[in-house]
């Protein structure tokens, strides 16, 4: 836990970290609020997808797009250490390479926990606003989407971490991270059959927050094969472990 305390000493006074977190919380709130007022065929979306228990799937699906911001924050925190050459000084002072990776992973877990709690608060707020049935059963009905979201956010940030340790320059690392998540892997998906690409990291992470109404869309178009959230959890945790191991290997093999 000393590692986490050391990380907090760096992050808490760091304005950039607060700004990125502020953008994350602000934008998420704004999008959820704005979307609740959309209407389709005269009936407001809010009346359906914002009700318990659907709200949990809706909110985690929307939040999944903002994982990129959390990833950017992690990349900034890691590449800063290269810019300031502080990784080097921390190793001189006593940390091992494994400590460096672990310390950042604690930050990842911490941020995932905070954003999950934030989603819990948002979900309760919008849910109570739009639901007519407010029994405990209804509220907690699909709350397990929050735990899938926690794994997903951790996975995105673990990939961002790998990108940061690998590339070391903030701008390039952010571009590589977004390009892989949003362009490179989706392009690979096109050329591969669904039964194979559903195990790819971005698709696995995406499967943790399925789109509300996906079933409806699948009836109209040819369905894409996805893992169910519960089946995606295991490979997602496997990828997180892989990203951590690769980060460690990079630190171990390269000079600081």
């Amino acid at each position: 836990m000393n590692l986490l305390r050391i990380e907090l000493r760096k992050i808490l006074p760091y304005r950039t970290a607060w700004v990125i977190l502020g953008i994350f919380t602000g934008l998420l709130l704004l999008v959820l609020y704005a979307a609740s007022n959309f209407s389709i065929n005269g009936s407001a979306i809010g009346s359906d997808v914002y009700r318990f228990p659907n709200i949990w799937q809706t909110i985690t699906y929307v939040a999944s797009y903002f994982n990129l911001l959390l990833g950017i924050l992690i990349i900034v925190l890691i590449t800063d250490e290269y810019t300031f050459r502080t990784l080097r000084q921390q190793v001189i002072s006593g940390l091992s390479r494994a400590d460096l990776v672990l310390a950042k992973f604690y930050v990842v877990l911490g941020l995932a926990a905070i954003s999950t709690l934030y989603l819990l608060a948002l979900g309760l707020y919008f849910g109570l606003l739009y639901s007519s049935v407010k029994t405990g059963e209804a509220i907690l009905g699909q709350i397990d989407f929050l735990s899938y979201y926690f794994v997903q956010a951790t996975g995105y940030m673990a990939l961002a971490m790998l990108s940061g340790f690998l590339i070391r320059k903030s701008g390039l690392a952010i571009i590589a991270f977004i390009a892989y998540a949003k362009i490179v892997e989706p392009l690979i998906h096109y050329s591969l059959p669904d039964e194979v690409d559903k195990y790819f990291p971005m698709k696995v992470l995406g499967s943790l927050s399925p789109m509300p109404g996906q079933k409806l869309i699948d009836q109209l178009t040819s369905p894409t094969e996805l893992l169910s959230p519960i089946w995606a959890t295991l490979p997602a945790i496997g990828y997180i472990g892989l990203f951590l191991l690769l980060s460690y290997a990079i630190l171990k093999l390269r000079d600081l």
Partner: protein
Amino acid sequence: MAIVLDIQHLSKKYGSLQAVDNLTLQVEAGSIYGLLGPNGSGKTTTLGMVLDVINPSSGSFTWFGKPVSRDTKRRIGALLETPNFYPYLSASQNLRLYASIKGADPASINEMLDLVGLGTRSHSAFSGFSLGMKQRLALAAAMLANPEVLVLDEPTNGLDPQGIAEVRDLILRIAAQGKTIILASHLLDEVEKVCTHVAVLQAGKLKVNGPVTNILAKTEQVLISTDEAGRALQLLEHLPYVTSFASEKECIAVTLQENYTSADLNRDMFAQQIVLSQLVVRRKSLEAQFLEITKNNA
């Protein structure tokens, strides 16, 4: 004497560049060990390897007879190349962070800041510091947790003359507490003034190492003046331990063999009733010595 740092056949290759080539040396406890060499001679690479931030291509080293670990690192304070701090944190916040890594008492932070003369700036952000202040903060960080060994890479880099004098004074004061100091520098004068031992590196190779006095005092040059220059010159020709002598403007420059000193010369002169009006020992400076060492082996 206990060996603090034992380096065995350490090498580092960057592509085709051999930065450090089969370096073997030992640093004894309590010494001020100077690592001397021109820029690019492998000093920083060597220190980076023993400080666990650069992977050696081959060879090994031990600290206090043990491989590098969290435990050995806690006993070493180091300043490598540049002062490395978080620019947005204040001096004391930065030190607090490193103190928690080293397990140092947070109460010692203000003491360290006072020691390096940053007591009044402890709450200013690191980014606003001058190079000299950054360097002094790095020294303060290196001294956290009261280490037995200080590794300092160009510690007077970027300091003004007064700052340089202060840092030297600080090094001597720390050494007086019985700590071991390993100091890399390209400034001969610096090494000559503070170090007890010196290793000269050139192009990654160890050229010579040993106590500074040994390396410096291999040959001693003595300047003498006397009213009876003629007789003195005659005598010098017959003294067996005089390797060479030459008349200069006002005096005679005499080079003595090893293990002979100006006292021997003075005694023999006086025995022949030649009274010297001046007797000056001119040690060959480290600079002359250094140029000779690096030239011979180039």
